[in-house]
């Protein structure tokens, strides 16, 4: 107990160690593996990202020059970011929020 006294005083006057999440959002740290963002100007529809993705979250439609990304199937490993030779995937620095619907994001040239 006496050894914890310092902690008790610190906790009484200090800031809480946690944040009240849905009301107060913590700033994402630099380098957070966030949502994918395809820069279609750089993409040449080579489908490397689709072949690499371990959870089959990316579908490339080469004829339509379109990429679909299922953000709820994605495991945010960013293997696709490393696989893309044209550096066309420019991920955002954010934390994907939960949603009521499983959205599929579409990127078009």
């Amino acid at each position, binding site marked *: 107990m006496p*050894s*914890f006294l310092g902690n008790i005083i610190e906790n009484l006057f200090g800031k809480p160690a946690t944040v009240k999440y849905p009301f107060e959002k913590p700033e994402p*740290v630099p*380098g957070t*593996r*966030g949502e994918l963002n395809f820069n279609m100007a750089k993409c040449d529809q080579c489908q490397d990202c689709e072949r*690499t993705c*371990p*959870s089959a979250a990316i579908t490339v439609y080469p004829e339509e020059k379109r990429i679909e990304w299922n953000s709820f199937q994605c495991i*945010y490993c960013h293997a696709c970011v490393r696989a893309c030779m044209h550096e066309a995937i420019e991920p955002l620095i954010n934390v994907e929020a939960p949603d009521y619907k499983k959205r599929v994001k579409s990127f078009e040239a």
Partner: protein
Amino acid sequence: MSNEPKLTVIPFGPQHPVLPEPVQFQFYVDEEKIVDVLPNIGYIHRGIERAAELNDYRRNLYLCERICGICNIIHGQTYAGLIEKMTDTEIPIRAKYLRTIWAEIARLQSHLLWIGLFAEAVGFESLFMKVWRDREIVLELTEATNGHRIHMGTTVIGGVTKDMDEALISRYQKDMDKLKKEMDDWAHVFRKDPAFLSKTVNKGVLPKKDAVHSGAVGPVIRASGIPQDMRNNGYEAYGELDFEPVVYDNCDVQGRVLVRLDECYQSVDLIKKALNQLPEGPIAVKNEKFPDGETIYRTEQPRGEVFYYAKGNNTIHLERVRIRTPTLPNIPPLLGMLVGHDVADIPAIVHSIDPCMSCTERITDIKEVA
């Protein structure tokens, strides 16, 4: 009427406030004393091995990292090590050091998690919160490294994906010192507090001989006086860091607490040492070949030895994958530890092996119900 005492059966789990893991034990008790224990596992069998056989071997890395949340870094490294061994890929020395540093980070966060949960299981709730707050230091480091608090995801077959720059290295050094200071704040409670010791000393005794015969691994066997630790084999950079396993002769729950506590200090020292002698060079090589032949690979997870086996046939698929995680061999010794103790000691003893069921479930038994 027979003279046999009438035994009461108490089911513990699969949903139980003490244990966040779905495992069931049936305790046969005579009054307060445990006479026999029957375990029942298989509640969260996910067919990981089958999935790994159907997958492209390169994608399996991400599957293996997700076998377990807490051990994800070491699972990934073990799978990558296995494939590198099968394809004769020698990873660069800097990658070996980085993997070692991150494996120790994983061990730190797992042991701190366990120490907190154990403190809560024996009734020390404010200690639990203090330990978990200090664990945040480690989680924030993980996040600063590669952008995720738990899933570091830095491993690839042939090396690592991320290098450490000067700023990150000095942050690691600083945070390790800070963590050590914070740990000094509460470590003595686990070593000396009489209320704590009354719940752990001479509880769940596993004599040296039984530990060997029942095949215990990890901190459980090291607390019974056997220096069995896969890091002794010197995989990754452990061979160059003068690694010595932490061993205690207590053979009881207190011994397991002390092993994990000392391993936290050891991890801090290993990380600092590896950072100090971090060699320069590339961090990854390309592996050109498909896996072929049969190989096993073993590493030390926070809970003990993890064993991977794979059989390749020179294609992108593996013919057979077998994964044995440390909780499975620790269940038989646990049954022996529990017999003869009071019902009130169950939480402390079950917790002392640090069960991680989602790692373990490779088999399931489906019973037909009439």
